[in-house]
């Protein structure tokens, strides 16, 4: 026997959580795109999406956020800090690849120095993930060692019932357990079978790829130029990546008052690494694409023993010139043979 949450009870669940002072967010489609937004009613959710276009990371690391306010007087600088203080939230209906991405980002934002902007939101959120029963041609979680029902980064995992009426509920963390308490009355004992999870084919041999990337000989391989020649440096892949975390810090305002903000930035951009002298360590688009791939599959794993890619496939799905991690790693797999 296991706990079942029926889809009919979802709106009631949301009310119970809100009564506890929690906000409820989930996948919503609007204005030709989809992402995570606050919802009141279960009908607002778009649970049929294979994956939202935008990732979960925006909930913890917004595209732009104020860090400090400043006001400068003759003898004094007055500053204020904007630290996230939103109510705790339930994120209902994340996908396993996105949830895993958040756990990977935690490593970076906690690397010796703890980023309060990230963790104040992370600590006050509960991720309830729904295992995937469908995938699309761009999904590649299995190639990254994950699966359509991976538990990594989730607090609760829901497995869709074969009937389509609801989900089997798996509590994964104490935080998840606590979040389930207020809705305990709506969780029914049952033995209904779960739908089979999506079959996501293996697209490349990750180990062969990381081995090739780790070889210093290949750093200046002509491969990088060939594979990235059509990259237009738009940054879409980085903005839509659950694990891309690079940012800029910019002041908005004038000499007297304004706001210091943390903004998304991207290794695809020429200015990202440009020195004041004009020297740019990564002066070409191919050097920048190499950085993105190396960062994900070599540098990050060197530091944190995990690749910073969960196979969500967005970089390939949304790339305006049909590039992406998938193509690059498939090509490297082929080079290896």
């Amino acid at each position, binding site marked *: 026997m296991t706990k079942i949450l029926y889809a009919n009870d979802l709106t009631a669940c949301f009310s119970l959580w809100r009564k506890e002072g929690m906000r409820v967010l989930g996948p919503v489609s609007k204005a030709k795109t989809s992402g995570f937004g606050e919802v009141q009613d279960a009908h607002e959710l778009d649970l049929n999406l294979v994956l939202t276009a935008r990732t979960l990371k925006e909930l913890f690391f*917004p595209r732009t*956020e*104020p*860090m*400090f*306010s*400043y006001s400068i007087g003759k003898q*004094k*600088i007055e*500053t*204020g*800090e*904007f*630290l*996230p*203080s*939103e109510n705790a939230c339930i994120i209902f209906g994340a996908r396993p690849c996105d949830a895993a991405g958040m756990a990977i980002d935690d490593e*970076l*934002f906690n*690397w*010796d*120095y*703890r*980023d*309060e*902007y990230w963790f104040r939101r992370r600590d006050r959120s509960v991720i309830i993930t729904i295992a995937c029963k469908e995938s699309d041609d761009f999904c590649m979680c299995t190639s990254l060692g994950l699966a359509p029902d991976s538990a990594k980064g989730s607090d609760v995992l829901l497995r869709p019932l074969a009937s389509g009426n609801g989900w089997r509920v798996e509590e994964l963390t104490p935080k998840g357990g606590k979040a389930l308490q207020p809705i305990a009355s709506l969780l029914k004992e049952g033995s209904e079978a779960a739908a089979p999870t999506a079959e996501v084919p293996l697209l490349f041999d990750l180990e062969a790829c990381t081995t090739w990337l780790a070889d*210093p000989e290949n*750093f*200046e391989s002509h491969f990088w130029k060939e594979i990235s020649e059509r990259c237009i440096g738009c940054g879409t892949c980085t903005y839509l990546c659950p694990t891309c*975390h*690079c*940012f*800029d*810090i*910019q*002041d908005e*305002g*004038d*000499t*007297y008052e*304004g706001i*210091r903000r*943390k903004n998304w*930035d991207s*290794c695809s951009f020429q200015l*990202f*690494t*440009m*020195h*004041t*002298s004009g*020297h740019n*360590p*990564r002066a070409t688009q191919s*050097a920048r694409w190499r*950085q993105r791939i*190396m*960062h994900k599959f070599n*540098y990050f794993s060197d*530091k944190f023993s995990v690749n910073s890619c969960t196979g969500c496939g967005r970089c390939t799905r949304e790339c305006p010139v049909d590039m992406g991690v998938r193509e690059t790693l498939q090509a490297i797999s082929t080079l290896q043979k």
Partner: protein
Amino acid sequence: MTDTIIAAQNNIYRPAVMKIAATRNEAPGVKTLRLEFQDTADQEKFAAAYRTGMFGLYGIYGEGESTFCVASPETRKDYIECTFRQSGRVTTALAAAEEGDRITFRGPYGNRFPIEEFHGKNLLFIAGGIALPPTRSVIWSCLDQREKFGKITIVYGARTVADLVYKQELDEWAEREDVELVLTVDPGGESPDWKHHVGFVPAILEEAAPAPGNCVAVLCGPPIMIKFTLASLKKLGFEEANVYTTLENRMKCGVGKCGRCNVGSVYVCKEGPVFTAEEVSAMPAADL
């Protein structure tokens, strides 16, 4: 999002406020600021953490933050000196700041020169142009405890006589009997009364021919100078493991998050900015 203003003790992006205690024009477009902390707790935190080689982010609200080394030594920690060339938005604002003005500082960040390991050794400092500031921090750290080191040689070159920075200190070092100072300017950069060398640093260094035995070299300068000077040091018999240098990549956070200062898998902000030439050689050259 309903963000409200709350004070946090541990916000890693919160800079300390510093007062400009003095300013000095070093060379055309190059200025030194002496900064004093306004908050005792900030001062104590800095004094406890700072070691020569570390860097900071110097800022002016409304303009932003810019990364450069702490040019004052770990033996003098009740103030911070920074020397910079006015070139971008932040350095232009910093250059316009006057004595008594407030600016911000985040740091100290990064690793350090292992000065204890230099005890008992001869020291060779080589710097080019605006790269004397990071070298100067090590020079004073050693001169302030002079008895712990052997022979100290400083080779410093700039494009022109006017471009030499810390001119007063150069005079002071020139007069010291326990320091050998070798000054040079690029050909064409000399003034009529210039009494020192004319020529590029690598050639002048080879002429001075410091002995590599029991000697540590600290080399800071623009990439092209580093490249040729390393070749000269090699010729003189120096091993890469005994040559220290600093890397200065663009940074925004200083604490390993913003993702841009890495050379290969090495984050300059956390694992640098001080490296041995041996460590730099192991990095992918195309990423430097």
